[in-house]
């Protein structure tokens, strides 16, 4: 159980790290798709099947295509997907910042006792026994999710629909060609 989590985590982190350090944008995008697959595998591992399939549909299916289109539309020549190297000083300071943030977050996580967060029916075991308390996994079937979306969260669903409509129309307006004058400017 935990070994599977470690495998998924190592796969996801390795693909994400390599993707963000490559200079070829197409390779970066494809490796990030693999990373999103790893995140979907984590959702499956945690028992959130619907979210896993939503992740695959939205990220692996839709966002990846938008990213690849953006990469291909913003290159100047056929071979222009390899970008120039970035400044080393910025990379070093970014890595130092990231490691510092991870140190703070990791120390906070490791020093927190999560035992009192366990469900009321399960007595928290003393730490260090090596046995994790058995927690009954919450189940959220697609039926439950649908019922909640249509009852408790109906307002949120409507708002998210309006948000998506407005955002996608705005994206089309932003990316569309303006008129004849901008066509004259572009070679």
């Amino acid at each position, binding site marked *: 159980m935990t070994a599977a989590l470690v495998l998924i985590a190592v796969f996801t982190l390795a693909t994400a790290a390599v993707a963000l350090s490559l200079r070829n944008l197409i390779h970066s995008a494809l490796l990030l798709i693999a990373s999103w697959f790893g995140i979907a595998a984590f959702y499956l591992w945690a028992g*959130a099947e619907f*979210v896993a399939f939503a992740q695959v549909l939205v990220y692996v299916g839709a966002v990846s295509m938008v990213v690849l289109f953006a990469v291909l539309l913003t290159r*100047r020549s056929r071979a222009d997907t390899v970008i120039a190297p970035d400044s080393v000083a910025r990379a070093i300071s970014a890595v130092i910042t990231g490691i510092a943030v991870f140190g703070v977050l990791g120390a906070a996580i490791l020093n927190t006792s999560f035992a009192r967060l366990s469900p009321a029916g399960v007595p928290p075991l003393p730490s260090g026994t090596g046995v994790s308390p058995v927690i009954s996994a919450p189940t959220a079937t697609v039926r439950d999710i649908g019922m909640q979306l249509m009852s408790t969260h109906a307002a949120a669903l409507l708002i998210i629909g309006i948000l998506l409509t407005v955002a996608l129309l705005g994206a089309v307006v932003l990316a569309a060609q303006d008129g004849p004058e901008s066509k004259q400017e572009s070679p």
Partner: protein
Amino acid sequence: MSLDPLPLCLLFSSALFCLGLIGALARSNTILVLLGIELMLNAANLNFIAFWRYGPVTSPATGVMFVIFSIAVAAAEAAVGLALIIAVYRHQKNIRLQEANRLKG
């Protein structure tokens, strides 16, 4: 040292968040910066699912609801961000962040 699954999940998501942060800070290509921000959003979603699975019992689908809405907002954000990148490219013929330093068209 054996860790419970919940701290492991949280460590995983914080590592992913920091990778996204490093990517967003270190790269000067706008598309890669946007992808780093997407990774940070995904790390937040991992936290929702981890606490839903291992946290105190609440209404059965709370964490799943959070992540579904969060994925919807992230998809809208990615579409708008990439449209902005294409618009900037049309003006500047370049998507390096250092050269996109004026708002005048």
